[in-house]
């Protein structure tokens, strides 16, 4: 889209050190520390009220922490007013100026700098082109579609050539399909311009699909920082496991821990399942330790016939289908096990009529998963 192979702009690394912020009794941020690498697409993920937006506002300069510091490229920026920070924001509601046209909205930061008309026009045209809004210059924000407004907001935030771009749930006001397209565009844009993106979202699938790394937050604390697959496959806490994707999560007690190759084959007793299960783990956990056990629904197998040759490390349960949910590419089943517990199982329909749709309501089924596919999530202090 743009000339040259190199990245257009320079991204800064961002270091958030022990930042705390309280509103009255409510701790919005509780000793948060995050290191974001230069040029990274970094997501702050968490439910509403987890503190992610507060952190973004602190980086942007609209709020001040009670303690801690924020370093950009090694320099503390907390004493700078928002207009002096090399950071720009794409707001959740876009915050486009209603009295200005698309052109003037994008030109706004340059007009403040009193740049010459010719240079200004060249730059605005360049950014109009970057976000593919040519031909919409004279329209007021009220005449643009949601996706177009979002692009104006992005162009306006980038024209100042910031080193860090903050995005506050920029897709939440759009419908699902548009969201997917814009997410891909955002990813491309990030690759092109090379600015550090800090992306705030409550949507785990958005975060997983575009981020280089993700920080999962809840109640003002960072629970886990990692690449998307780490967060998904190896959640650090119950909350992360539940929040990212769907999962089956049970409290459990360690019964046995046997070394096997480079890991430990652990036997857990799960009260809700009234049975023992097998799971592999890298830690040698003491017998009697309380833990959380999780297994993702898509890692499980569901069959109507009892599997004939079951290897030793397979966990097998019988139940009846309580609720089948067919959604085209996959089916999700709520299976009521014989012991009264409900488990979620997801079956992908990769092949035509791949047994999935044949399983019906109230039918008896067997669910199974390998010891390798389950995880011990959180060691519970007792």
């Amino acid at each position: 889209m743009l000339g040259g192979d190199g990245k257009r702009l320079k991204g800064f690394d961002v270091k958030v050190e022990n930042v705390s912020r309280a509103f009255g009794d409510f701790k919005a941020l509780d000793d948060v520390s995050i290191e974001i690498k230069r040029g990274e697409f970094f997501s702050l993920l968490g439910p509403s009220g987890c503190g992610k937006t507060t952190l973004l506002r602190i980086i942007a300069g609209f709020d001040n922490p009670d303690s801690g510091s924020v370093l950009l490229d090694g320099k503390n920026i907390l004493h700078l007013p928002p207009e002096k920070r090399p950071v720009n924001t794409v707001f959740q509601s876009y915050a486009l100026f209603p009295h200005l046209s698309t052109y003037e909205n994008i030109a706004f930061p340059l007009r403040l700098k009193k740049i010459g008309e010719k240079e200004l026009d060249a730059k605005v045209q360049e950014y109009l082109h970057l976000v593919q809004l040519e031909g919409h210059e004279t329209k007021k924000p009220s005449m643009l579609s949601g996706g177009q407004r979002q692009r104006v907001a992005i162009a306006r935030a980038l024209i100042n050539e910031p080193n860090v771009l903050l995005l506050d749930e920029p897709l939440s006001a759009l419908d699902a399909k548009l969201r997917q397209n814009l997410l891909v565009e955002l990813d491309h844009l990030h690759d092109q311009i090379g600015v550090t993106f800090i992306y705030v979202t409550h949507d785990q699938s958005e975060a997983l699909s575009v981020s280089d790394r993700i920080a999962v937050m809840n109640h003002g604390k960072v629970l886990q920082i990692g690449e998307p697959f780490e967060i998904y496959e190896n959640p650090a806490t119950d909350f992360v496991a539940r929040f990212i994707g769907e999962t089956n999560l049970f409290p459990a007690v360690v019964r046995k821990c046997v070394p096997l190759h480079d890991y430990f084959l652990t036997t857990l007793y799960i009260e809700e399942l009234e049975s023992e299960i097998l799971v592999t783990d890298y830690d040698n956990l003491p017998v009697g330790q309380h833990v959380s056990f999780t297994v993702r629904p898509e890692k499980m197998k569901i069959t109507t016939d009892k599997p004939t040759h079951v290897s030793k490390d397979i966990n097998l349960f019988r139940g009846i289908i309580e609720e089948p949910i067919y959604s085209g590419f996959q089916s999700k089943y709520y299976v009521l096990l014989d012991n009264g517990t409900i488990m979620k199982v997801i079956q992908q329909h990769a092949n035509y009529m791949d047994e999935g749709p044949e399983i019906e309501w109230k039918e008896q089924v067997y669910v199974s998963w390998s010891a390798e596919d389950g995880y011990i999530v959180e060691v519970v202090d007792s």
Partner: protein
Amino acid sequence: MKRERQLGIIYSAPMGLWLTIFFLIPISIIVIYSFLKKGLYGGVEWQFTLKAYQEMFNPAFLKVLWRTLWVSVVATAITLLLALPCGYAMARSRHQIFWLALIIVPFWTNSLIRIYAWIAILSSEGFINELLLSLGIIKESLSLIYNQQAVITVLVYINIPFAILPLFTTIDKFDFQLLEAARDLGATKRKAIFKVLLPSIRSGIITALIFTFIPIFGAYTTPLLVGGKDSYMIGNIIVDQVTKTRNWPLASAFSLIITLLSTLGVIWILVSGMQDKAKGVVK
């Protein structure tokens, strides 16, 4: 469609009737009277003449006209400058109802009584002078009343609610995140207000301007009660011409001038507003 349009005429008929009886007919009478010959003891003689308009060019009258314009502009400007921060603070306050009540309550008292209250405050034995004297800050009473400043002060006081209310309602609807966006994009606090807030609440400012300028321009009681010899305004001339000098055609001509100037002012404000708005788009 057509049926609806017919109904529209019926629905708007009472309003049309009202405006015809209480606005168009009086205005027509004023227009006609201004072109007639003055009666000896008031009233008019039915004889066409331009004498009333010739009399208006009396330097004494022109001076008053000029003064009226000046006082109106100054009082309106002060009113708006005070009303803007006031409306802003109200819109951002959590106790909006309380502030609104404070502004509306004085309306329950007759404006004449409120002006007399100002006499009690400003006069030589009034509240301010007594206070300053007792504190020893001044030795002699200041002449705070019966001059231009007193007229402007009271005009501002009387008219400021009419500026605050429309400003408050537009600022209340303003999305304050736009100010954050402006700051984020490099604007200082001041620039954010001038480049984003003020243009966004333009309609409120125009309404406030019209609502204050017109009543101030036609003011009569305030200059009469707290003004001195130097504070006579057009409103006072008209009353004098009707009641004392008994020159009804001249009074009509002055009334017509007030109406025309006000109308022209409003049209000018609206048109220039629309032009500026258009400028924002064209590029």
